């Protein structure tokens, strides 16, 4: 048997312990995060409650300060004007015809949650979709009725080095998942093509919102596939294509071509009618983004060049070099 009074003494020790933690929590100052330190601009912020009319670009604001990470908008005609800030924070954004997707990593809780919000013209969240990994690509079909979401899913296949991805297609009006590309019937050279290590990413939709192009990676090869969401099938078109982006008229695809000699990518343009591809003049840098079309002749993408980190604009003529359009900005989505 324990000594008399030992239990009472233990209860006193318990009380003292609780007191010690409480005193510590109250007396020590909270450690301040780096972003709330100096550098917060005093300039007035232009907050908006809906996507402005006219040709605009939506993007993730990446300037240091209190608006870091927020969804921001500029008019295409005046990209230098003060950025308009929306009431959403997103990692990855895309928007078309009044429908947008905003992919987020919610790190407020103990567990990081990955989510996609489907929002409307007034930035109202219509649907919240739980994702199975951290966001990497988002694309809304030109008509706005569908969206494709790609996440990194580290724990999906350990069969080989590197990453694994999951790409799902959702119906924007209902928020329902329509398809997981890994369930589609894939064809290569006229025969069925299947392997357990299939990874899809970088969907781009045709004007009808059903036809699509995407990247398929298997056994280290990266293919361009073309398919139909409704038919739940796709066929391999060619190799060495990542993150395709279809031009507004549907005739060209700008994509990341993996470099053979070193790690990285070079943007190329592919003429779908002739099958001819040629490099764009992106300079000596590697570009890792799924581009969006600025107009019929230029694309926009994120890059961190020495001249500045932000959204760059690049003509697809293969001659003209890129220019920095928006410094400290990420994930461009052009809406005309």
């Amino acid at each position, binding site marked *: *048997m*324990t*000594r008399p009074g*030992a*239990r009472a*003494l*233990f209860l006193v*020790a*318990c009380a003292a*312990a609780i007191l*010690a*933690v409480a005193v*510590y*929590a109250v007396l*020590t100052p*909270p*450690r301040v*995060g780096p972003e709330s330190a100096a550098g917060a601009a005093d300039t007035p912020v232009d907050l908006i409650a809906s996507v402005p009319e006219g040709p605009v670009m939506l993007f993730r604001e990446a300037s240091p300060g209190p608006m870091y990470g927020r969804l921001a908008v500029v008019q295409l005609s005046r990209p230098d004007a003060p950025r308009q800030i929306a009431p959403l924070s997103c990692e990855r954004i895309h928007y078309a015809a009044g429908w947008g997707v905003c992919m987020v990593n919610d790190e*407020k*809780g*103990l*567990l*990081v*949650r*990955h989510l996609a919000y489907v929002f409307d013209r007034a930035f109202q969240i219509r649907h919240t979709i*739980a*994702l*199975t*990994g951290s966001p990497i690509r988002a694309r809304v079909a030109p008509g706005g009725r569908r969206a494709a979401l790609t996440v990194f899913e*580290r*724990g*999906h296949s*350990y*069969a080989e080095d590197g990453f694994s991805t999951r790409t799902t297609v959702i119906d924007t009006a209902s928020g329902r998942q329509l398809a997981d590309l890994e369930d589609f019937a894939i064809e290569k050279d006229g025969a069925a093509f299947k392997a357990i290590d299939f990874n899809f990413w970088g969907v781009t939709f045709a004007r009808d919102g059903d036809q699509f192009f995407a990247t398929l990676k298997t056994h280290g090869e990266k293919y361009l596939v073309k398919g139909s969401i409704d038919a739940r099938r796709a066929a391999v078109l060619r190799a060495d294509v990542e993150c395709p982006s279809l031009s507004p008229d549907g005739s060209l695809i700008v994509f990341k071509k993996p470099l053979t000699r070193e790690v990285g990518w070079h943007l190329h343009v592919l003429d779908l009618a002739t099958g001819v591809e040629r490099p764009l003049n992106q300079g000596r840098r590697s570009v890792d983004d799924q581009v969006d079309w600025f107009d019929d002749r230029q694309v926009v993408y994120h890059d961190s060049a020495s001249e500045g980190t932000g959204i760059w604009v690049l003509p697809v003529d293969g001659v003209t070099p890129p220019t920095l359009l928006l410094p400290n900005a990420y994930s461009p989505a052009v809406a005309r």
Partner: protein
Amino acid sequence: MYAGDWLTRLTDLARDARNPRQWHVPSNVWGLGVTSMLTDVSSEMVLSILPAYLVMTGGLAPLALGVAAGVHEGGPMLAAWAGGLMADRSGRRKLTAGSGYALSAICRLGWFALSGRTITAIAGLVLVDRMGKALRTAPRDAIISLSVRPGQLATAFGVHRALDAAGAALGPILAFVLLWRMPGRYDVIFFASFVVAVLGVVALALLVDETPEPAAADADRIRLSSRDVFAAFGDAAVRPVLILATAFALVTISDAFVYLLLVQRSHAGAQWIPLLYTGTSVAFLALAVPVGYLADRIGGRAVFVFGHLLLLLAYAAAFGGFTVWPWNAVACVALLGGYYACSDGVLAGIASRVLPAATRAVGLAWVATGVSVGRLCSAIVFGVVWTRAGDRIAVTAFTTALVIVLCAAIATRSTGTAVAS
């Protein structure tokens, strides 16, 4: 065994269960339970927020995960022997266990001082913490076993393991509540973890009394030499327990793998994995005491073997292709909790029965080592097979091996009854 025999046993069981004295365990068991609970709250509240922990449970390649889990399980084996030997040779089990608890408490202070600095330093401290755990386990179990009469061993271990599992379940919840009320205050969690660990040492000092030893044991102790470390092998009564425990550990799939494959096959996110750990702890703590009581009545070995049947069912729930998330996870977690209730404390009870008091801590360390080595090998082999041949073949191979060991254990029951009764 005849049907009539079972009927008599069941009748006795039902009559006994209504007698409150059968459920009463000595205050030492409660004291050690409270100590373990506080220590587990302290460690789990930190482990659940360590990013390294999430990497360990979700982000590493299977082979790396296997090695990490194996080192985690088998690394501090030397400390376990040292703890057992020190306790038996000095006879000061409480002091030995206390130094193990104190070592872990000092680690918590290190965590607090280093919080947010380097992951490697914290990983090193996790290893020292595990050594403290290894050091204290055998002497602690020896105190528990020496505090109760033989007919109550499994119940006592059940009470202790239930409190221990309660701590493991409470720790992450406490961390979650603290972070929720004070966002970003990781330092408060590290500080609270240290305070709770110190409280665990205080609980041991105040609530646990060293059992006075019989004179015979005293005489034994003088003769105890380092050669007696291997005494467990020479003892014909102990050997079957050691073989049984090691054989089962060798064919057990690590929890980390089970949870990882479960969420992958159900297309659920990795963020569920910590919750699966908590769920298993809750099922374990709910079942530990009744299962321990049962083991004292019908024999520990039968319950131990039955536990591995539950493990087999847990694999079926996790890998059987029932992707009815979250119900397959609930079934898997409940069955795993049942498996732990039937194996962890029950094994300590079986071993305590056959080990002489003077060499009990070393003997318990041996059994724990057998289990650790078995799990170490199993984790590495599973990781290698998964990497080379795929997860399906790895699961099939381990499940088949488990069935074989189960059949062998049931077939050799006649020799084992001596151990159980």
